[in-house]
């Protein structure tokens, strides 16, 4: 093969080079030609039918090579606005201001303004699922007011607001007052006939001159339109049922009614069993959680069996209240946030076909049977409080 292939190989190589060079260096974009987008905000524009798109773009520092920040005042990002009738159109319109196409692969979060959410997201979400640069791991959030305001608030510890927001959402585990929803989850809920999509709420709090971003609560949608929201306790009630509570704080009043004991949630598990009996839908919810005593404001010694029992019962009751609060809110909004419909579907496949069309009417009639089991398993470093009341041994 050696001698025979000499001439054909050279021809082939020559031909390859011609092919490559004549068709241009395609597909490649130098890094500096990218406009790296890390956050996108969508609002409604004044003139009806238009949307205002805010893209948060990374601005590279001019001191190339050393990577030092120019000073505390320089922002490492800039927000660009553009309008259009559809998201894609607005995205392309931005090139009038930036000169380069947006690069949205590194987008961390998509924030929808409240006005758009109330109108209905189904018109605007397609781009974020279809664009090949978008990743389904991007978070979706709803702004209390306008998304562009949220994008402007410069955080203290992070360089970019969008990254900050993403960090805040990821921290849901600490309080369980909100939940992380990414594009794929949202789309999955939207595709379902019965489950209500949700997204965390983000708001801007003005604190003297500083603008702080505050993420808490969940917005509830029905078929793409935002119909209401869950406050922090209701969100936690929802998370109890879904088994997604990772940590948080439960405050119960101490057994002697003179103060409170603060319990930290260490872990929680839930099991939901749907039951369909003579057209009555009953959901059996069983929750197991483990707590630790983190703080007490009373001087009573709580490290006794009876005190533990009282506190456990009290926390179980609080959990039950939270779940019921969430359920009541969902009944009020007539939105199946727990996914009960889907659970019924999975268990009773045949019967579900008949039920699913009337789910809106059936949902309020769902009964809950809640069974909570709490256990306090540790008390951190103190056995007894430092300041004890008399007779508190």
């Amino acid at each position: 093969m050696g001698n025979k292939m000499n001439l054909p190989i050279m021809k082939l190589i020559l031909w390859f080079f011609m092919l490559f060079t004549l068709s241009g260096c395609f597909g490649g974009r130098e890094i500096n030609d990218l406009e790296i987008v890390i956050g996108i905000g969508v609002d409604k524009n004044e003139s009806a039918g238009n949307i205002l798109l805010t893209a948060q773009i990374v601005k590279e520092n001019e001191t190339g090579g050393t990577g030092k920040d120019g000073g505390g005042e320089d922002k490492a990002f800039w927000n660009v606005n553009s309008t259009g009738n559809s998201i894609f159109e607005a995205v392309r319109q931005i090139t009038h201001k930036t000169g380069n196409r947006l690069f949205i692969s590194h987008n961390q979060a998509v924030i929808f303004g409240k006005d758009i959410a109330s109108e209905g997201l189904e018109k605007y979400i397609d781009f974020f699922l279809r664009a090949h640069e978008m990743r389904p791991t991007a978070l979706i959030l709803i702004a209390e007011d306008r998304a562009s305001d949220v994008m402007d608030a410069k955080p203290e510890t992070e360089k970019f607001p969008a990254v900050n927001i993403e960090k805040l959402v990821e921290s849901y585990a600490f309080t369980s007052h909100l939940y992380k929803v990414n594009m794929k989850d949202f789309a999955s809920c939207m595709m379902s006939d019965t489950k209500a999509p949700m997204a965390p709420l983000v708001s801007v709090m003005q604190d003297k001159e500083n603008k702080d971003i505050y993420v808490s609560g969940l917005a509830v949608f029905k078929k793409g339109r935002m119909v209401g929201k869950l406050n922090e306790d209701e969100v936690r009630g929802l998370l109890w049922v879904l088994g997604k509570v990772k940590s948080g704080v439960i405050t119960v009043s101490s057994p002697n009614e003179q103060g409170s004991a603060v319990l930290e949630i260490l872990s929680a598990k839930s099991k939901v069993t749907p039951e369909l009996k003579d057209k009555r839908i009953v959901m059996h919810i069983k929750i197991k959680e483990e707590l630790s005593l983190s703080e007490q404001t009373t001087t009573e010694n709580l490290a006794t069996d009876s005190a533990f029992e009282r506190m456990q019962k009290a926390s179980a009751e609080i959990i039950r209240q939270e779940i019921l609060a969430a359920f009541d809110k969902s009944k009020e909004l007539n939105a199946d946030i727990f996914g009960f419909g889907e659970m019924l579907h999975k268990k009773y496949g045949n019967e579900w076909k008949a039920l699913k069309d009337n789910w809106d009417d059936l949902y309020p009639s769902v009964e809950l049977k809640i069974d909570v089991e709490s256990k306090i398993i540790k008390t951190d470093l103190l056995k007894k409080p430092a300041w004890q009341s008399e007779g508190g041994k």
Partner: protein
Amino acid sequence: MFRYIYRKIRCSLLKNIEKRMHQDALAGKNNSEPIFPDLKRNLEAIKGILHNSSDVTIHEFNFGHDRRFKGAVIFINSMADKGEINKNILEPLMYGALLLKKDADIDFTDIDCVRKNLIPITDSRKVTLFNDLIECLLAGSTILLIDGSKEALVINSGKRESRAIDEPVTEVVVRGPREGFNENVNVSIALIRRKIKDPDLCVEKMIIGDKSKTDVYIVYIKSVADPKLIEEVRRRLNRIKIDAILESGYIEQFIEDSSYSIFPTVSNSEKPDRVAAKILEGRAAILVDGTPFALIVPMLFIESFQSSEDYYSRPFHASIMRIVRFLSYIISILGPAIYVALTVFHQEMIPTQLLISIAEGREKVPFPAILEAFLMMFTFDILREAGVRLPKSVGQTIGIVGAIVLGQASVEAGLISPIMVIVVSSTAIASFTVPAQTDSGTILRYIYLVLAGLAGGFGVIMGLLVTLFHMASLRSFGVPYLWPVVPFDFSSLKDVFIRMPLWKLKKRTKVIVYDGSDSYKRNPG
């Protein structure tokens, strides 16, 4: 059809070349003539053939009773050991013969008789043709001609200057013997013999090269090596038609399987322990006079990653070092290519934070990434090439200049981004861990870089596939080049990526089997 025409043209060209070479062979040598019995005629003929070169010394003398026999000693001045000639050739003939009784039964015109009875030298033989006579003379031997005899006696009395046995410069080890081969092939063979004291160790001599008549030895162990392999080696060596073999590299290029492949299929080494180990595995070593580099056939790709030190140190460390070598080879050929492919075509694969850092670093650079990478790699190759030929006194300075100028200053001037410097320098350093593949690695690096710059990840994948198929189809003397990875042989993998303890490597390796399939054969010439 074009191929047909092309082949016809090649065939006719080849025939012309053959004809010319044949004529050359006939032309210059009037050598198959026997030696004349007349001494004067012989000397004239020899002077004529050697064009009266001034370093050919002819000493005529008389010996025998009544000094009636004439003889001549011919030698090359610079190559013969004159003391030896005086003491062991001239003295016995000129004096010693006088001590014999007058009617002693010695025929002074019979070379054999003289050789066996009068010349006290062990290494001698007789020749009858001019061809052999001249050859031996030029090789440094002394010729004894006797008037009236049709034969001449060749006496190997030469001493030879050569370098002392030294540590080889190119293969430095931390642990292991530090001797290396010499330019004198006899010394080299002696070193091997000392390591393998087995009667089955065969040493076959061949003479290759029309004008250089270089001694080439094939060394192998008869009971271990595949006879078909040795036959093939002999066949290929015999096929070589060249005027001079100056170094084993010439031979390598003639006997290798595929001259157009960038991968070497013949390995070389300067160290006797390494060569001995390979001979014991069933390979054949080719030693060439005049160079310390011995060739070893056949060669497998994985051998480039094995160093003799691996076997002298303990298994875990050796295995880790092997793995490090493999990974660094991959880094050295794919480093810049992957960097360019990722940053130009697939920015979505880079984590966000890293992407922003890279973008910041590239802010001031005026070139596109591929050009930047190309320039840096090229500069590094210039540095490396220059470094080899530097006089030692200037060496240190250039090192510092290289580092500071090319590295730091270009970054600060905004010509190169700092990440590129890191990538290219790690690539360059990694390329030195696998010395046997340095040349192929250099070429591959540029090829992958170009492919990455043109077609991103897709180009690199296609390039890798083509390389893989090329290597998989390559054979070295019949053995598949990527054995044991590609024709998958699980039991032999013990010594490839890791090094199992010696007591597990029961046979030294599986015997290298010469696969007699025809697909390796190339059209000769």
